[in-house]
């Protein structure tokens, strides 16, 4: 197992390196690095100073090494709009997105998987058909539309919940989180619901498909012949077997959910990194865009690595093959 993890870690590092090269080439060689690093309304003096500081008059390969150097130190430059170091800016906004995404993902999985298993176990029941109908909606209807409808129904028409922005925060481990206050939770509910629906639908469909297929296998038939109760079969055999595709998709969709937070945050004016990137695109705040790309790439690699490891942990057949 250890050899497997190390091998994967090294692969991840290589990928990060490749991405850093891609971003570097895209921004510094193809694009105009001056535009990326220096705000268009900077004075000539500051321009020259920045060129010197970032070595923009140096040969390309040296610039790349400087770039890597800065990356490792966490220096992504300064945001044009906010005039503060980009990394600091991102970390400031990150908790908002994290709590939104985690709440959405947890809710979607904890609710979606059991419902999906039930729908797959009794595919012809009325409840199962209802679950599938809701999941089709969550799956096909674009997130922004659901957000709109949610705001219209709960905020405008019924007036039960606020229409946007983050609520009050409380401190935990030195970071401000809004799920720790009642007001914060009220503000968190609708955006989290919005974000979770797509993933919920996906989990339901996956669990249902997996359960349906597994129930038809000889494994289940043999277990029934041995006298195992249906509940035991579902819990011990089916769940374990469908866990593999579910965990894989969970990991992939985690990243996707983080990305979709962009839409939800825009609609609900949620001050997270999703809204940050959209605003940056429209204001052409390029240092933020670059940093966001690298950060997201890093996050994805971490997620992929975790999924790979979890995959090997769940499917024993993979362990012996990889270690060999």
């Amino acid at each position: 197992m250890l050899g497997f993890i190390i091998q994967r870690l090294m692969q991840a590092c290589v990928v990060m390196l490749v991405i850093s090269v891609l971003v570097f080439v895209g921004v510094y060689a193809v694009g105009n690095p001056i535009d990326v690093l220096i705000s268009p309304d900077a004075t000539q003096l500051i321009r020259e100073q920045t060129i010197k500081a970032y070595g923009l008059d140096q040969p390309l390969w040296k610039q790349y090494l400087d770039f890597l150097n800065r990356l490792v130190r966490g220096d992504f430059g300064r945001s044009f709009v906010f005039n503060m170091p980009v990394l600091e800016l991102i970390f400031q906004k990150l908790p908002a997105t994290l709590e939104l995404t985690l709440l959405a993902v947890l809710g979607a999985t904890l609710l979606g998987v059991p419902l999906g298993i039930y729908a797959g176990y009794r595919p012809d029941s009325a409840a199962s058909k209802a679950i599938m109908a809701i999941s089709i909606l969550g799956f096909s209807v674009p997130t922004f539309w659901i957000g709109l409808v949610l705001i219209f129904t709960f905020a405008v028409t019924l007036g039960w919940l606020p229409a946007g922005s983050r609520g009050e925060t409380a401190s935990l481990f030195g970071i401000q989180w809004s799920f720790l206050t009642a007001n914060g939770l009220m503000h968190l509910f609708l955006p989290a619901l919005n974000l979770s629906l797509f993933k919920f639908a996906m989990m339901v469909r996956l669990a249902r498909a997996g359960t349906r297929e597994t129930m038809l296998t000889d494994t289940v038939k043999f277990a029934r012949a041995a006298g195992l109760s249906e509940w035991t079969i579902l819990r011990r055999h089916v769940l374990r077997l469908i866990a593999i595709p579910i965990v894989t998709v969970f990991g992939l969709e985690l990243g996707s959910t983080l990305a979709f937070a962009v839409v939800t945050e825009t609609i609900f004016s949620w001050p997270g990194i999703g809204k940050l990137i959209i605003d940056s695109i429209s204001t052409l705040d390029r240092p933020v865009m670059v940093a966001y790309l690298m950060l997201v790439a890093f996050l994805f690699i971490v997620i992929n690595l975790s999924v790979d490891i979890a995959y090997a942990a769940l499917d024993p057949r993979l362990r012996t093959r990889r270690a060999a």
Partner: protein
Amino acid sequence: MSALLEVSGLTTRFDTRAGLLKAVEDVSFSVAEGEIIGLVGESGSGKSVTGFSILGLVDPPGRIVSGSVKLNGRELVGLGHDALRSMRGREIAMVFQDPSATLNPVLTIGRQMRLAILAHERMSEQAASDRCIEVLATVGIPDAARRLENYPHQFSGGMRQRVAIAIALLNRPKLIICDEPTTALDVSIQAQILTEMKSLAARLGTAMIWISHDLATVSSVASRLLVMYAGRLIEAGPVADVLRSPRHPYARGLLNSLPGLAKPGHDLVQIPGSMPSLIDMPEGCAFRPRCGFADAACAAMPTLSASGPRSVRCHHPLGQLAEAGAPQS
């Protein structure tokens, strides 16, 4: 000896989109304690479905339409869900054909075996593991204690089937239904498992229904032979007798077509034609289109007539049965 299992008039049908599939029609037989009977037939003859029907494992759109299955006098058809479940694995167990499909690849065999024990008895995990080790040793798996924590893919094909057999034996069932248990194995392993199972059954006093299409394997294990064709029982009797002088033309054709009996230099003997579709069955004897001895009388379905330990479903049985015997069912 009273019958352990009494099957009478069992009829199982499948309501498919293409039509009503008559998989098992009016099948009756009995199994005594400790007896090994062989259920032979080609693919589609209904032998596997018969096995599933006994355990109540027929999946929809199939269902047992009529008939009865009595275990020690207790009726199993129509039994409630819980009662059926507690009977399965404990009084009647089943072994399937392909152990790589029946064993869950992501669970250790120890876990799977313990689940089978704990489904019927409450005991500590240690006690359950102890029993597992004991049974694994019985079926010939060395170093059982360590191998409990192995996964199915870490065993060879033959060993996997032994594990499946061990699971079947865990709760000391009185009857084991074996559905083609050696078909998926290497020929060399087949012979091994065959002899082992036969001696196991004798030692533990377990009865067996051995389902197979392979006459050779069945005849080395069973004491009585039941031949099925197109969902019906067409011949039954002691193994040696049936093999020596089959009464039903189909059984005779089956035996003649065994490659082992082929005369060198001559073409292999075949039964012409193929089994009729179970959805669109013709009137009368199902074997009629392929039978060399058929005539007008065969337009009516023959009844199963018995003479001593032998019975045959035919209007023109080969051999002495033509004179004696009263219709049985």
